[in-house]
């Protein structure tokens, strides 16, 4: 499947911004089953400087500085991604989850170390007994890792309501857990908190999800959104993606932009501005399948 994605972010400021330093994490990663052929950023006003760098987690960052007075900043990422269907091997018989939890800390191999670091608390995700208790209803004693993971994903989907008004980008996971409401970012954080509370390794994935128009209606341009889900480590298999918001296992409808310990590592666009006052933010994503 080949997608063309346009992700347009518009900031409008009440007062002129004189200088803005920004970093964008908007170029899709390339993975074995997931190739990002073309990807470019268009920025208005034209940045005075612009550099690219691959971060600690392997994500593609773009740093730019706008240093002329402006009241509007537009960052448009245009990418083309080719995804192979179901490229991750699926084993019905995975290790019991306790074995997974036990094996990760002792694994000094590069892959093992790489995974281990996602087992710890991170700035936005605390490890807590309440998360462990919730997770244990899926992670029953001796249950295969994959089975437990699918069950937890389904439970979060069932127990939590999608509600874009209930939370914001800074809402702590504890509050999401209490309110039982939130958006994809919240559910991903919650599932990661559950897994890490059981000493399992899980990371946050930011990307896009293909949406389908209602039957008989045309596809609406710009109606898509950026999305987030979870990836958990299983020795011998690797990373298993889970989308708790939709209770699906991501396949060729999910485009991966970046991953990190939590949202803070991969927020699509962040920046510091001088001046500006209050601002409004508009995000429009358009994900168009151009070839099956």
């Amino acid at each position: 499947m080949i997608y063309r994605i346009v992700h347009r972010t518009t900031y409008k400021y009440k007062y002129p911004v004189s200088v803005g330093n920004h970093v964008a994490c908007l170029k899709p990663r390339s993975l074995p089953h997931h190739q990002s052929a073309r990807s470019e950023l268009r920025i208005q006003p034209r940045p005075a400087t612009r550099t690219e760098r691959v971060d600690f987690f392997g994500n593609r960052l773009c740093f730019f500085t706008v240093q002329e007075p402006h009241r509007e900043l537009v960052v448009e990422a245009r990418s083309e991604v080719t995804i192979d269907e179901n490229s991750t091997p699926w084993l019905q018989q995975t290790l019991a989850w306790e074995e997974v939890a036990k094996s990760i800390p002792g694994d000094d191999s590069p892959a093992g170390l790489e995974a281990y670091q996602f087992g710890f608390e991170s700035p936005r995700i605390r490890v807590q007994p309440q998360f462990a208790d919730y997770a244990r209803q899926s992670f029953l004693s001796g249950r295969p890792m994959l089975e437990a993971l699918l069950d937890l994903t389904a439970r979060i989907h069932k127990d939590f309501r999608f509600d874009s008004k209930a939370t914001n980008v800074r809402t702590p996971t504890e509050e999401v857990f209490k309110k039982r409401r939130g958006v994809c970012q919240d559910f991903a954080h919650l599932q990661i908190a559950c897994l890490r509370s059981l000493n399992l390794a899980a990371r946050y994935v930011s990307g896009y999800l293909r949406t389908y128009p209602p039957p008989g209606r045309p596809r609406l341009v710009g109606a898509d959104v950026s999305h987030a889900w979870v990836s958990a480590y299983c020795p011998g298999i690797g990373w298993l993606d889970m989308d708790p918001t939709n209770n699906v296992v991501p396949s060729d409808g999910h485009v991966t932009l970046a991953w990190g310990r939590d949202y803070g590592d991969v927020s699509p666009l962040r920046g510091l501005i001088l001046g500006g006052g209050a601002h409004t933010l508009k995000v429009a994503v358009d994900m168009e399948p151009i070839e099956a």
Partner: protein
Amino acid sequence: MTLHLHESPSQSADAYDELSADGVTPRPHWAHLMESLQEIGPEELGRRWNRAERRIRENGITYNVYSDTLGAHRDWKIDIVPLLIPADEWRSIEAGIVQRAQLLSLLLEDLYGPQHLLTHGHFPAALLYGNPAFLRPLVGVSVPAHSYLHMLAIDLARSPDGQWWVLADRAQAPSGSGYALENRTIVSDVLPDLFRTSNVLRLAPFFRAQREALTNLSKRDNPRIVLLTPGPYNETYFEHSYIARYLGFTLAQGADLTVRNRRVYLKTVDGLEKVDVILRRVDDSFCDPLELRGDSLLGVPGLVDSVVAGNVKVANALGSGLIETAAIMPFLPGLSTHLLGEKLKLPSVATWWCGQSYALDWVLNNLDSVVVKPAFPSRGMEPVFGAEIPQAEKGKFAEQLRARPQEYVAQEQVALSTAPVWDQGCLNSRSVVLRTYVLNTGSGWIAIPGGLVRVAEAEGSVVSMQRGGHSKDAWVLWDGPIDTFSMLRPRNEPVELRRVPRVVPSSVADNVFWLGRYAERAQNLARILRAMIPRIRLAEEPELACLIRLHGCLESRYSKLPKAKRRRPTSLELEQEMTSMFTDAKRPDSLAHTLAEVYRIGDNVRERLSADMMFLIGQLRDFVQLEPKTQFLEYPAILTDCLELLSAFSGLERENINRGLGWLFMTIGRRLERAIYLTRQLREITTPLAEQDWSLLECLLEVADSSMTYRARYYTTLQPLAVLDVLMADETNPRSLDFQLSHLADLYQKLPRHVRDDLKAMRDALALLRSFDLRELKYPLPGAAMAGNGSDGLSRLEHFLRDLERLLPSWSNNLSSRYFSHARTLPISIGQ
């Protein structure tokens, strides 16, 4: 300095006494000092001590305490009696701390580099990944060989058997070396003979080496080095400014720096100046809100990227806070053998990291003898003394440890040694901790001879600077020749005369510019209020309309009056609006808020203002906190007092400030603000006034403090054109528009690298203003037809004032882009 060391009283009886082995006879290296003190005698010592204390206050040596609700700067408390360390003992301490610095430096290099220690099992991965001080964006960044640590502070304590132990390692932004220096200056002044005859190793060579080491971090000749401070509210701000001055570096806060094109620059009025080396006193995770902690207000956005690009060196390197955790201590002996091929010379206080299962078991079995702390201090848990946990809660505590063992360390409690302190005429014993400093010179490591001794407040209490303890000097009594190099200029050497300070940071110019604007804004506001308030209650319908027009000149966005289109406000509503504009500090355009801003901005630049000015500003801030029962008609008298203070302030501004760049920006701010509100007020006159509205003229003259000028010329007849002449065209009236514009052009021209187009815009505006011949203007007189050909000139004038009203804020924005934020300016001109 957040070390929390505790000592229980029962143990202090067994503590090592630095002064004496048997409690009676001084140890040999203390004999000379004891004799000298005896000779000087308590009375004379007391006198000298008072002199020293006065000097501390005069020098403004302070230590801010976070928990101090008054935000007061506390005086630095120092003790007159130094801690004495004999040469041989110092040699072994020095060897131990230098080795430790080498080891920790290598550890950092590996953990931020190839991570062989992890893959080969020499260092537990959990201690890296679980540590919030591990800054991932810095992994793999090339740092010149062995320069992760520029300076390391190591806290030492001596146990009852005489052995020195390491209590803590400080690599984040180690503080205290400046206080050590200041302590030395003071104590050697109080005890000059003793100091001279004791052959004490000097501190200055260490600081000279520090300056060289920082200079060498950059490849450039004459690099610019800045000391990055969190600012005046940090507890060790005094030290930051002291060290910056002593070493000749620029003191900068995050907002003084900017990253452009992956390079760090200091923002100054003269332009952007490249920064090569940053000596940081800001914790590393706060140094870059773009890539590290996004909530930090202390950092420089883009700093990490500049470090990654190799364009700036930061000391200590970003990320070095990693090795501060006590959890690494159990691994140091093994790492020393592995990395250095040597045994660890100086032991750490016994420490167990609970992430190792045998350590956890040991801790749980011996809870009573240890203190449990978070492995990663940023998690904010207070130390727990095992012995103090009630029996019933021990099980629960053990559960807590078992659930996330890697988050905890346990340490043995150390009985600190005691040293004599001078206390109201006699010597008492207090527990001490010695903070030592090791410096990376690039070709090796050297230690500050001695260091900063921190003293427990009372017998058996906590030793911690953040809780307001005090300190003493440490003398290493050397047995060889001494380097007496001094960084301070001898008193008899002439100073180089210098008229102009080297750099004016943009932040200072920015603040004084707004100080000028707000002080002027407050004055205008107070005058308008004072003109309106006494008139409201007596005002008949036409005059009320005038007052509403005068209020309209303020263009208040927060007005509580009904919209003019709907209906005319009643006098009661206007009265309430006046009260709100005067006293409502929550309203951004109120006088109360404006005065609070004057104070806030003044406080930002308090080091640049005289004490008198700060005093006035403080009084102004308190001004609008009115007694609850103050009557409306009492307001004018209060406003008059307030205006007196504001006049006193502008008087000081004129008479007491050097005509440097700071003054230029403050005055430009004032003129600009005055020009902006004058333009608005004048526009009220250019819209033809009906006769009943002419009382507005009187108010306007009063607001501009120009009633006398007017009366001297025109007696009592109020005529719009004559008022226009006084307030707009009279170039001799310091409150006329002509005066503001011509001064703005002159002042602006004096600024370095001013924008020619902006200068031209101001001059064009002035020329346009002067092109109006008021004598030729036909002002519709009462009774004449309101709209006629005669008012052509008048509408041209109104047009001009509208253009000017648009120009002035853009001109101000350009000024701030050019000098404060260093952004591109936009093309402006009058009439566009």
